[in-house]
């Protein structure tokens, strides 16, 4: 009788499983390494941007140049974030929360820079920040976030040079983000903040969103 087969099979399974997990760790580590390099590159860019802002404000360089570099940086961060989300979705063994937090910090810095530039240069662009939950189990909130995400993507696609899109997760426990969120005085999330003052938490159509974004600027005039 081959009753030792039970133990042999257990040992074999443990070995194969462990090798599989190790391979998984290795593959995910390689993937997160790539995302990490993107993050470091983005962090360098934000420092670069901050320095540029100081140079611009000190030496009267055109707002157009400043706006161009800000948009380019914001678009890069947005693409990096999409990459990070994809890695997060496929990663089952490595924790990318730290990378998420760093990106949220970066985007908060970007938001402040954008607000400074808009104020200083009377910028003809609109800052659309999107505050969402990173960890969500609720089906309704998840669907709403999904919808907002698509809507803002469409808005950005239609107005690439007029809208700067900054999504920020509000539950990754970054202190500065927590303070910024509290300062808004808004309790309903996900929500879209337009130019730092208009808050949208309910469903609106794309057209309505466009009207709100561009009319807000008009009403300020």
């Amino acid at each position: 009788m081959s009753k030792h087969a039970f133990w042999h099979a257990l040992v074999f399974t443990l070995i194969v499983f462990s090798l599989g997990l190790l391979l998984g760790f290795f593959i995910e580590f390689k993937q997160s390494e790539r995302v990490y390099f993107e993050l470091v590159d983005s962090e360098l860019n934000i420092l670069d941007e901050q320095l540029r802002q100081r140079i611009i404000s000190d030496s009267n360089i055109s707002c157009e140049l400043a706006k161009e570099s800000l948009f380019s940086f914001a678009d890069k961060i947005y693409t990096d974030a999409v990459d990070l989300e994809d890695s997060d979705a496929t990663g089952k063994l490595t924790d990318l929360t730290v990378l998420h937090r760093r990106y949220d910090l970066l985007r908060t810095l970007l938001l402040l820079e954008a607000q400074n530039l808009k104020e200083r240069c009377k910028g003809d662009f609109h800052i659309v920040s999107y505050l969402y939950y990173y960890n969500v189990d609720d089906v309704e909130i998840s669907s709403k976030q999904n919808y907002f995400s698509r809507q803002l993507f469409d808005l950005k696609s239609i107005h690439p040079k007029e809208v700067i899109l900054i999504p920020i997760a509000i539950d990754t426990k970054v202190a500065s983000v927590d303070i910024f969120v509290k300062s808004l005085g808004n309790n309903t999330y996900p929500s879209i903040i337009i130019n730092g003052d208009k808050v949208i938490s309910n469903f609106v159509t794309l057209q309505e969103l466009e009207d709100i974004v561009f009319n807000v600027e008009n009403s300020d005039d």
Partner: protein
Amino acid sequence: MLNFIELVFYVYLFIALYMTSLLVFIWVPNRKNLFSYPFGKAVPVSIIMPCYNDSGTVAHALDSLLNLRYPKEMIEIIVVDDKSNDNSVEIVRKYVEKYSGRIKLIVHSKNSGGAASPTNTGIKAANYDFIAVTDSDSTPEADALIKMIGFLQGNEKVAAVTCAVMAKGADTFMQKLQMIEYSIISWSRKLLDCVDAVYVTPGPFALYRKSKLIEVGLFDTKNLTQDIEIVWRLKSYGYIARMCLSARVYSETPKKFKQWWKQRIRWNIGGLQCILKYKSFIFRNGMLGGFIIPFFSFSLLLGLFGLGLFIYLLIKRTIIEILVTKYSIYGGTTLLRLQDLNLNPTILNFFGLVLFIWAFIFVLIGLSIMDMRGRKETNVFNILYYLLIYLSIYPIIMITSIYKYVTGNIKW
């Protein structure tokens, strides 16, 4: 990072990998002896054939018994009709007249609702010490009996012997899938025989010691799978069930989904009845408590839990997609983005793929050993369908069986 659901998937993957590896580890050292059988001396055998509305197949079944390569004077065939309302009795009577002395017919005055009662009637009427039980739609190969009898003669503890049950013909797609299934089951059952874990002596053709059947109280008439229950009972008494892979019996398989579904519900209810009846034996000494009952029980629990989890995830995903689509249509936004189609595989996908390939190889090996490879019924498409779709239905069968059992809807 891993969440609870992903962790559950890992556990399932581990168990699936373990079970298939176990069978391979049993197969490898025993592969040269799988088809061997102990030399048996022909001794008198009573063959019991319960019959109910089998006018289409009973004649063929009787012919195959009459053609067994076994001394004719050492076989008596007892057909027990369970109050058929077709002309099964008339057909059998013709055989009784032609082969008087070799074939007997007993007719029940009312239908018992199962195979156990007519089988018990036949056993009580049997003259000989060895009992073979067969179905009235099954045809054993000519050398099946002589190959099986040796198992009962070498070891007094051996109380039952089964053989390879193969699907008879494959006219419909459903039957082709069952042809694959029966081949793999037969091979797997022989592997379980190598570790004394045979858990059933299927009705199409099985051999028993009459004295042991009487000792344990004959077949359970309340159980829908009396062929599983009798083996568990024999094992609970300390007896052994063996399997002879080189002996084959061909059995009719359901042609259509509805018949197949009904059959599998019955098998599952019977399995459930057995688990509940023998639950006190779990984890006790011997392979019944050490492997068979835990295997059945955990398969049931894992199947139910897995189905529940699958339904939960499916419903959650479906609700999210419906809501997002509804909002997107309302909002005039893009319905589907390239980004939404995340085709990057996860480590779970990788493990799943490895397991699937492993299972596919396992099926190919099994079909090859059972000499079923290369047939048009067992082509690659059918094997893939069997692995991906056919087997996935089982948890639904399980839950339906549990519902029927709990609501008392227990019938053949």
